[in-house]
């Protein structure tokens, strides 16, 4: 830890905390889960970056969606994302959440995940190697440093539109809105 970092720690401990302690909830929808075990075990060891898998979305602040998202999965993705506590960051892993990947012409695959929940970063590739996760993590550090990783703020501001998009695909949603309209005023 050099002097530069120390001043940062003193100035904004919260920001630095979010940076160096990313508790991940892995959402394993497709083939992406194959890349997760090597990245958290002895070969690549994600824990040295402070990246640690946790059991429930309540404890997590990084959401990694690995693999294609079908309509049914989208429901679970939204619920998981809404259960996480702010500040929270979402990262799409693999080309499927980006634009549907090789399943783009399926009747049941949601093509662009960022139409439904805000995504802070993408890891492109089919499949990305575990190293790509670490590049993404270090990139996310700079984003958090510059306060560009503001997906949760965008979600709060434009919740109306996100919810409208979600309802367009899923029909009537079973859960009440996370940010009701009256609260804003």
């Amino acid at each position, binding site marked *: 830890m050099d002097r530069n970092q120390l001043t940062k720690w003193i100035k904004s*401990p919260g920001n630095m905390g979010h940076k160096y302690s990313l508790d991940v909830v892995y959402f394993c929808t497709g083939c992406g889960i194959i890349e997760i075990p090597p990245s958290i075990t002895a070969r690549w060891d994600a824990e040295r970056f402070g990246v640690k898998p946790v059991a429930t979305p*309540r404890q997590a602040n990084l959401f990694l969606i690995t693999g294609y998202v079908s309509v049914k999965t989208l429901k679970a993705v939204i619920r998981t994302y809404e259960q996480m506590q702010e500040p929270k960051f979402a990262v799409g892993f693999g080309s499927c959440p980006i634009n549907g990947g090789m399943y783009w012409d399926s009747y049941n695959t949601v093509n662009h995940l960022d139409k439904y929940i805000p995504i802070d970063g993408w890891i492109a590739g089919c499949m990305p190697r575990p190293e790509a996760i670490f590049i993404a993590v270090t990139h996310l550090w700079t984003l958090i440093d510059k306060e560009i990783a503001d997906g949760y703020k965008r979600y709060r501001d434009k919740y109306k539109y996100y919810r409208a998009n979600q309802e367009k695909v899923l029909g009537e949603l079973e859960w009440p809105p996370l940010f009701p309209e009256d609260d804003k005023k």
Partner: protein
Amino acid sequence: MIVLEMLILVILALAIGVFFLGLSRKIMSRIHWRYGPPITQPIIDIIKLFNQDSVSHGSLFNFGIILSLAGSIVMVFFLPMGAMCPMSSSGGMLVILYIMLLGPLGLALSGGEAANPNISIGISRKFILALSYEVPLLLIFLAVMTHYGTISIVEIVKIQSANLWSFASLPLLLSGIAYLLILPALLGERPFELIKAPQEISSGPMAEYGGKFLALATLQHAFHTFVGISLFVNLFLGGASNPGYFFLKMLVVFILLIFVNAVFPRFRIDQAIKYLWKWPTLLAFIGLIIVVIVD
């Protein structure tokens, strides 16, 4: 004066507990052939968690976790650490036996409000486990009390410094071994990790904790680790005259604990009861009989 001593003791206990959390993660990863997180990782985690939003499920949800943390902090006052023993003149071991249940009780109160099925499973496991380790613990305490003829831990430490450590003297050796056997269950470490069991019941009682609640739960775990090991050092390893020496003794016990934690898989709850009511209870009971016969 006593308030100052208390404050120092709490800060020391917190520092040692959090250091132990970091150390356990580091040693565990070295055993797994990983590089591991920096040893300051739990501090970063706690800072982050305090800066995160948290959702509450009601007043009892908030109260329970604070009760649990308070129970663990209060126990620190009753345990002498080196020469510091602010409250240990009163109550001693009996108080510790009582307060030890506050931790699980607080978590249970808190979890009851959240109505998450994983929490109920975790809580029920926690109480069953508490029921299982309280029996040998009571027998161990009885043996120690009978041998030294006092319930005050300060007295016990004083007698030990004049004579042998009780772990090294024959009448209490079996009780000491029994305490070492139940120590993982007391702290919820690996062979008895079934309370949290992240892969199985998504971290049990902590399933609904996020942000500040999780930070408080982590602190509670840190204090609890300190108390469990400090009790062993005081009762069986002769305490210490200064905090540094005391810390060294704790470190040895804790590293032993991590090694067990790193190699063993998890017991099922029925296996845990079977184990706890068989070997530690048997050893503690024989130890008690030996103490009664010898004295």
